[in-house]
């Protein structure tokens, strides 16, 4: 029988194998812990050993407890038991890299101050042995004053010993001896603690004093104001006068202590051996070779998001269609069937269709990050990204957004700086994603690639559409970093970790986590949005005579099917008699009736009526109400415009995939061709869209290039920022940009054409 649960917090620098240890200990018994008000998530896991339950918390990798943001403060508060949702840890496991002890033990020394038993886990003992380092763990334990366990987390060496040591530490409750600071310092701490009427634990008072402009200072100054400000300034002056300047005094004292411990326990070879990392870095961060490798890696990644994902996405689409078909056959027609087929199955399909791209991108990110290349990529791209106020870490998320913004936004998790991450998230949907392509291709095919126009023109227009995103995104990022997301200059110093071989299980786990997070949390919101727009296009479904549109369409379809054979026969006749001509015309009308009825229905649907009413709003863009309705119907997913256009122009629903794939069946091609023709013909009759067809088409394309017509993107922004303000902001600024851009395009185009 388990007696009690021991709460254990894992703390360590980034790239110490902390997550590997966490996964090795907790296996599949994991969940994600969310904390209100912050964007970090911490994983929690469980472990049972010898009848004892352990609750593990994997804190985000950090170099120090000097918190500079609310996100970093969560970890500190959690360790001090100041978060209401978590108990104070019984034991802190400080995980350090055996090849980097002289740096990683700095964080350990901070952990000793917290008044909680500490166990040091020295990881990567294999790498240390390979470098000729010998570590005497007994001596290290004596020097640090806490138990030390050597482990190799990726193959499980030393883990049973670690678990036993944790249990013993929890049982003994031995509070570690903090590192000693000069006397003058302790006196000042005592003084300030008293001034704050003992409300703040001494550990945080130290952080207040040391971390100039840090989170503790911001928080306490907001509470105590001017008086504390003076007190703090005076205390820091006093310390500087006593030769203990802030923040150097903390680093000097702690590193002196670390050096002593390392000197006592570690024997290093005389000369520093050349490591694999030295050799690989000589190529990968090299000016020319490094750039070449980087371009190759990005090319492969990009290609695979596009190419490998496509067959899987087609499969998902096929399953969705099959399911829709089966349900449609099993149920009688009516609102329920339509809701299930078009709303629910269509909605779930449109969520799942993103999965292949998310999984592939996250496989790449996991491999690149685990092997240490991600930091090198950021290093190589930093200069370019710094031009728009971001850092090299924003490059991969933005590049991935060219395939799809959803995985791109999820990839911003690699950016630690909160403001940089938000700026990247907010501009990622501007990158021209693959869902925009069918829209561009359809409109370019109908209005730009006409007989007589130069052969290079369609390509140029397509290129221009992509360039809109590539130029507007950095400008918006720069504007944001100068206004909304302005703050203290961020620190760009970044560690370039040693190269390691990535582990398959770790990669699979990352893919699974990303996929699950998307489907579970973003999926529900996307589904809701899809159903709402479906309903707006479905209701009311009764025409002015009291007949139901779906029923009439079904009848018309049956009639068309019954006469289809005869129609084909008649069409095949070379020189028809007048009677045959009349019959042909009649049967063609019968065949076209279902699409015509569908068009009528959509035009008098709620969304259709709103579109008609809103026509004046679309006028400056050169749009009629049909284009307006199609644009509004595509807010949950922009590729929907192709199908909506089909409905509104009486040619029936058109699959956007058909626009891009010339190899599809004849029927599909005929559909796309008739849609193109219908739009051309109807616009030709119109006083605005007739003469100005090209400016109108361009204005629609610019609108689609700039607008955030993607419920999935907005849902993912909400998920990643844990806030509804950011998706709302993204939606509003992009719609405004899109409206302005489309208007400018049309008005300029009209001047030029006119």
């Amino acid at each position, binding site marked *: 029988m388990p007696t009690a649960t021991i709460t254990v917090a894992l703390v360590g620098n980034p790239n110490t194998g902390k997550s590997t240890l966490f996964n090795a200990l907790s296996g599949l018994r994991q969940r994600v812990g969310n904390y209100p008000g912050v964007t970090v998530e911490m994983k929690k896991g469980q472990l049972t050993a010898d009848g004892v339950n352990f609750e593990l918390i994997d804190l985000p990798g950090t*170099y*120090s407890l*000097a918190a*500079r943001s609310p996100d970093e403060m969560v970890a500190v508060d959690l360790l001090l038991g100041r978060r209401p949702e978590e108990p104070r840890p019984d034991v802190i496991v400080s995980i350090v890299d055996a*090849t*980097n002890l*002289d*740096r990683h033990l*700095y964080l350990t020394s901070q952990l000793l101050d917290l008044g909680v038993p500490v166990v040091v886990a020295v990881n990567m003992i294999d790498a240390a042995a390979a*470098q000729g380092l010998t570590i005497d763990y007994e001596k290290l334990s004596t020097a640090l004053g806490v138990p030390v366990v050597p482990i190799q987390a990726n193959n499980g060496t030393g883990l049973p010993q670690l678990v036993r040591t944790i249990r013993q530490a929890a049982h003994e409750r031995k509070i570690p001896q903090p590192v000693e600071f000069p006397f003058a310092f302790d006196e000042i701490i005592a003084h300030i603690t008293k001034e704050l009427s003992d409300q703040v634990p001494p550990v945080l008072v130290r952080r207040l004093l*040391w*971390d*100039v*402009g*840090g989170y503790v200072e911001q928080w306490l100054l907001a509470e105590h104001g001017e008086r504390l400000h003076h007190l703090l300034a005076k205390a820091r002056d006093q310390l500087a006068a006593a030769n203990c300047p802030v*923040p*150097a005094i*903390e*680093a*000097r004292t702690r*590193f002196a202590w670390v050096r002593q411990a390392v000197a006592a326990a570690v024997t290093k070879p005389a000369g520093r051996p050349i*490591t694999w*990392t030295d050799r690989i*870095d*000589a190529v990968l*961060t*090299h*000016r*020319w070779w*490094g*750039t070449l490798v980087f371009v190759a890696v990005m090319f492969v990644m990009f290609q695979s998001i596009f190419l490998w994902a496509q067959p899987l996405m087609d499969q998902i689409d096929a399953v969705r269609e099959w399911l829709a078909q089966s349900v449609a056959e099993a149920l009688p027609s009516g609102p329920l069937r339509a809701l299930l087929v078009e709303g629910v199955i269509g909605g779930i399909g449109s969520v799942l269709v993103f999965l292949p791209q998310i999984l592939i991108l996250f496989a790449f990110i996991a491999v690149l990050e685990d092997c240490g290349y991600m*930091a090198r990529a*950021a*290093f*190589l791209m*930093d*200069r*370019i990204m*710094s031009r728009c106020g971001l850092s090299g870490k924003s490059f991969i998320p933005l590049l991935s957004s060219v395939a799809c913004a959803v995985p791109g936004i999820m990839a911003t998790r690699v950016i630690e700086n909160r403001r940089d991450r938000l700026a990247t998230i907010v501009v990622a949907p501007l990158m021209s994603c693959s869902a925009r392509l069918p829209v561009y291709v359809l409109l370019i095919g109908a209005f730009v690639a006409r007989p007589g126009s130069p052969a290079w023109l369609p390509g140029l227009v397509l290129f221009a559409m992509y360039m809109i995103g590539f130029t507007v995104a950095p400008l918006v990022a720069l504007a944001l970093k100068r206004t909304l997301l302005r703050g*203290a*200059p961020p*620190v*760009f*110093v*970044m*560690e*370039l*970790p*040693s190269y390691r071989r990535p582990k398959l299980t770790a990669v699979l786990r990352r893919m699974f986590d990303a996929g699950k997070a998307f489907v579970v949390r973003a999926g529900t919101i996307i589904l809701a949005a899809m159903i709402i727009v479906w309903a707006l296009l479905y209701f009311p479904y009764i025409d002015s005579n009291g007949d139901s549109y779906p029923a009439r369409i079904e009848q018309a379809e049956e009639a068309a099917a019954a006469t289809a054979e005869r129609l084909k026969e008649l069409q095949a006749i070379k020189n028809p008699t007048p009677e045959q001509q009349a019959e042909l015309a009649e049967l063609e009308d019968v065949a076209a009736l279902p699409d015509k009825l569908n068009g009528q229905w959509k035009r008098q649907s709620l969304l259709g009526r709103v579109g008609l009413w809103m026509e004046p709003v679309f006028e400056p863009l050169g749009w009629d109400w049909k284009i307006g309705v199609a644009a509004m119907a595509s807010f949950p997913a922009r590729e929907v415009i192709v199908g909506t256009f089909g409905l509104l122009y009486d040619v029936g629903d058109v699959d956007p995939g058909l626009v891009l794939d010339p190899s599809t069946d004849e029927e599909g091609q005929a559909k796309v061709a008739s849609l193109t023709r219908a739009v051309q013909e109807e616009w030709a009759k119109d006083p605005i869209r007739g003469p100005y067809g090209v400016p109108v088409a361009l204005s629609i394309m610019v609108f689609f290039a700039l607008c955030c017509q993607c419920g999935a993107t907005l849902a993912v922004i909400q998920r990643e920022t844990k806030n509804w303000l950011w998706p709302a902001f993204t939606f509003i600024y992009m719609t405004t940009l899109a409206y302005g851009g489309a208007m400018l395009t049309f008005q300029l185009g009209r001047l030029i054409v006119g």
Partner: protein
Amino acid sequence: MPTLADLSCGQQAEVLAISGHPAFVQRIYELGLLEGERVELVAVAPLGDPIEIRLGNSRLSLRRSEAADIEVRIIPAP
């Protein structure tokens, strides 16, 4: 006084003083780059910025503007 930004590839130097924004100075200290430490410039990114330095067994990337806040004494090659 030369700074870390003045090193060329393969050159070693000893850190003398670190100035600049408090958050930057503190982060540099936390990464173990203290006065008296020895560093080596390993690589320079394609557009000349940032730079990669090695400090013991760890490697750091710094922007040139940040490296310029770290005064060093260049150690002549033996």
